[in-house]
């Protein structure tokens, strides 16, 4: 066999490109930089494009949501009307057929016709074919329809809502009679099988819910409408009108309630006694008191004082009470305003598909937008304003009382004199006038002021009652929608607290998962420097003491080390000189000092040295890159290697190669002794020299063929996998 000595290594024709930088003009680093600088420019324009796309997407989403909200208004109105009609026609006629006749059935349906009528008109205005919800003009149509019908809506609903309490009372009376009620429920269920209704009030409560829902539906549409939309201000106006309608309906309801009560006969209560109370009776009482004291003591001038003192005392108490009440009421109103300024219903956590979240939103919106504001307004008109006015009126009497005292002192000095001078006479007269005036009018004042006060407190109580009544009626609309509303209080709170605990547990697990998985340090092969350091440390301290930093540490105290994540240290002591186990003394391969023990984790190493293979000697001489001995750090948590694996025998039958040989360049075999190579192919070297011992050629096996290839066409690369198939 010809020795292909004259071949490849030397000739330029087939010679592998010398390992020089073959890039034309730019150095690789500059080239990479240029690529990177192109990338930001690409980046910026890509980003701008991406932002535009995102903005467009957002606008589309909003338009989509607005459309959905608008359609929801129409769809729910249609459904609502249909159910009301089912109730009024089908159910009613079926109930009328029941024997024995249901007493007062007609009064259940007293005002519902008007509600159905106005709802039908609203729907016909909204549902016409010419302008559909997709049309941008639709919003205007919607608002116009609503605004034009708002007076009619108000009149229809106000009667209905004022009468609603009688409806519930009547239904309760039906419920008392078991067999009758079961019959009714059967009729209801059979008349409207697709609806899961168990009572008449299921249907009859709908107008109560519906009127409160209009503001919210309109506000949702508004939320998703761009303020630049031509119909936006009209939409705003409509939303406000919807709130105002609700306010007025509630006011009317109260008016009717009061009027109805007045017609009923009443029994005499403390309330009536108060009605009888007026300034005269109080004046009488204080006069009586003074009379009594007169009798007891019998001393005239002092008696006058006693009477006056009683009046004066009463006045001061009144003054104090009014002032304190005034302040307290103002504090109360300021807290009320603070409460109203919160808007928790706006943050629905994107749960607008969930029933409880929706109900909560509607209830809170109603409370905050018209129920509480009405309460506040009435408080101010019926309590705060009169209180302010009353407080101002206190000034006059107070000053006059003080003046009287001054005059009294003057008078006492001259009282005993038998004859008085003209001036002294004037002084005496002044005193007497003021005294008499006060004696006459203070009782009236005291009485009137007290009655006023009493009335205000009565109003205060009544306002609370009305507030609670409004909220109760509001809640009635939602009771059936909530899944757990039928639970008894104890059962409900148990369920709620259990769910909360479960939720907390879920969160804890999630947190732990996130922290565990994502905080594990990355496994990286060691650089040669680290390798050397590791070897030095292991030799000095033993492999059991080697630890790795899981995070950067910055030394703050004396003898503290500052180290980077991934650095290797050897533990000298697991506590510091004061016994603190959180600071460990370590050897960092040079400096010694303390690091926090929380940042240290045991470092496991593979300590098998790769066997000295013949390939090594070849390549160390030729390849500039050199060969590295790597000790790989397997995933710290999963593997544990025993530090001492026996050295494999130095024969060709190596079992643990840590290196792989690849073809570095293409090579075409020119004889049968040679074998062709393609770049990157894995190769098995059989003999690192030819038959003559020349190391320029190697006998290799590749693709099941054997042959010679130029040795410097081979690349030796360390493998990363754990021990692979052994050589045989």
């Amino acid at each position: 066999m010809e020795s292909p000595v004259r071949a490849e290594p030397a000739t330029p024709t087939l010679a592998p490109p010398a390992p020089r930088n073959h890039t034309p003009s730019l150095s690789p680093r500059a080239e990479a930089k240029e690529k990177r600088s192109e990338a930001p420019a690409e980046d910026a324009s890509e980003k701008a494009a991406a932002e535009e796309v995102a903005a467009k997407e957002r606008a589309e989403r909003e338009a989509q949501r607005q459309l959905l909200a608008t359609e929801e208004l129409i769809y729910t109105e249609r459904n609502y009307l249909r159910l009301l009609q089912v109730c009024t026609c089908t159910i009613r006629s079926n109930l009328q057929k029941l024997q024995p006749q249901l007493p007062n059935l007609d009064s259940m349906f007293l005002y519902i016709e008007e509600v159905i009528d106005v709802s039908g008109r609203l729907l016909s205005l909204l549902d016409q074919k010419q302008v559909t919800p997709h049309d941008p003009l639709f919003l205007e149509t919607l608002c116009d329809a609503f605004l034009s019908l708002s007076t009619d809506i108000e009149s229809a609903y106000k009667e209905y809502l004022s009468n609603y309490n009688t409806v519930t009372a009547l239904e309760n009376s039906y419920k008392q009679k078991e067999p009758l009620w079961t019959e009714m429920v059967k009729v209801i269920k059979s008349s409207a099988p697709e609806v899961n209704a168990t009572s008449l009030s299921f249907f009859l409560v709908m107008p109560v819910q519906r009127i409160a829902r209009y503001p919210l539906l309109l506000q949702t549409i508004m939320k998703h409408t761009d303020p630049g939309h031509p119909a936006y201000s009209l939409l705003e106006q409509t939303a406000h009108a919807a709130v105002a309608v609700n306010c007025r309906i509630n006011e009317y309801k109260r008016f009717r309630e009061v009027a109805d009560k007045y017609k009923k006969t009443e029994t005499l209560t403390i309330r009536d006694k108060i009605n009888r109370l007026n300034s005269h009776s109080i004046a009488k009482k204080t006069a009586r008191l003074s009379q009594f004291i007169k009798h007891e003591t019998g001393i005239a001038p002092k008696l006058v004082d006693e009477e006056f003192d009683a009046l004066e005392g009463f006045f001061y108490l009144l003054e104090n009470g009014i002032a304190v009440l005034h302040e307290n009421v103002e504090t109360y109103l300021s807290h009320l305003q603070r409460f109203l300024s919160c808007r928790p219903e706006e943050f629905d956590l994107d749960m607008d598909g969930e029933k409880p979240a929706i109900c909560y939103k509607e209830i809170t919106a109603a409370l905050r937008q018209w129920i509480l504001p009405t309460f506040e307004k009435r408080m101010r008109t019926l309590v705060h304003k009169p209180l302010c006015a009353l407080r101002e009126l206190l000034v006059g009497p107070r000053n006059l009382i003080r003046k009287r005292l001054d005059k009294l002192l003057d008078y006492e000095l001259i009282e005993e004199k038998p004859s008085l001078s003209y001036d002294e006479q004037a002084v005496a007269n002044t005193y007497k006038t003021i005294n008499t005036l006060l004696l006459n009018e203070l009782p009236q004042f005291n009485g009137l002021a007290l009655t006023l006060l009493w009335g205000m407190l009565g109003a205060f109580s009544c306002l609370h009652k009305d507030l609670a009544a409004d909220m109760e009626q509001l809640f009635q609309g939602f009771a059936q929608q909530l899944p757990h509303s039928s639970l008894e209080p104890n059962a409900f709170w148990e369920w709620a607290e259990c769910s909360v605990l479960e939720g907390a547990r879920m969160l804890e697990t999630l947190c732990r998962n996130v922290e565990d998985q994502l905080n594990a340090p990355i496994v990286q092969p060691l650089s040669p420097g680290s390798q050397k350091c590791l070897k030095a440390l292991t030799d000095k301290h033993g492999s059991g003491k080697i630890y790795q930093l899981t995070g950067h540490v910055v030394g703050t105290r004396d003898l503290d080390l500052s180290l980077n994540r991934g650095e290797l240290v050897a533990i000298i002591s697991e506590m510091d000189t004061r016994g603190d186990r959180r600071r460990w003394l370590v050897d960092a391969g040079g400096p010694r000092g303390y690091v926090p023990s929380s940042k240290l984790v045991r470092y496991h190493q593979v300590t098998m040295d790769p066997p000295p293979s013949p390939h090594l000697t070849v390549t160390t001489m030729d390849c500039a890159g050199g060969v590295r001995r790597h000790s790989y750090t397997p995933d710290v948590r999963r593997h544990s290697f025993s530090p001492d694996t026996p050295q494999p025998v130095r024969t060709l039958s190596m079992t643990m190669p840590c290196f792989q040989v690849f073809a570095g360049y293409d090579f075409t075999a020119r004889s049968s002794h040679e074998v062709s190579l393609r770049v990157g192919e894995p190769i098995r070297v059989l003999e690192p020299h030819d038959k003559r011992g020349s190391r320029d050629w190697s006998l290799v096996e590749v693709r099941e063929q054997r042959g010679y290839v130029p040795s410097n066409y081979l690349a030796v690369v360390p493998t990363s996998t754990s021990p692979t198939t052994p050589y045989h």
Partner: protein
Amino acid sequence: MNTKMIMLHLTMSFNVFLQVERDFEREYDKLQKLEDQTKKLHKDMKKSTEADIAMSKAAVKISGDLLSNPLCEQDQAFLESMTALDTAMKRMDSFNQEKVNQISKTVIDPLKKYSSVFPSLNMAVKRREQALQDYKRLQSKVEKYEEKEKTGPIMVKLHQAREELRPVREDFESKNKQLLDEMPKFYHSRIDYFQPSFEALIRAQVVYFTEMHNIFSELTDQIDQAGLTDEQRERENEAKLNELRALSIVADD
């Protein structure tokens, strides 16, 4: 491994990175919005609860101060009224406190707990971002070597670079996958988590207002004049004030 990951392996183009980023951004965006809303809701609920408690205490003070004024002793009927008012206010306050306690347990605390998850999540996202940067850096290094001529040293460097890249890439992929798994799950979990809170909020208020209605209906019957509209009350107040103003002892400005 999903298709995206496979694509990542095959073609490490910038576009693929961008797509992966967009998916991630979208999910993370939702979570950031949720975080924002949770924080705001928590803050608002706390504020409104505080105002609520303050209002109730102010009402108790109104009646308490009146009752402690010796004025009450002057007239038996007045004393009875004020006592009734005071009792009513105190009872309302205790119901209010109960309501607030229930809301605290079932709404405000869960809200806070939910918020406290976000720092960990955000940290995890940061770590993923770091991993991504490392990945991109090492990836470009590998690509740089792949473009060069295949000399021995280059091959060796290429392999080294690939070796360095692999754990980093795996780290990023695992972080990315886990976050892409966890984020939508967490986002969805809010529904089950908060549903009891909303129901509890409503229920607590129902109980409170029902009690309020009972207590104040009784009280109003006792101390208020019946059959009055607001207008009538206003007129009565005005009439009495005018009577007072007509007195000579009252200063008229």
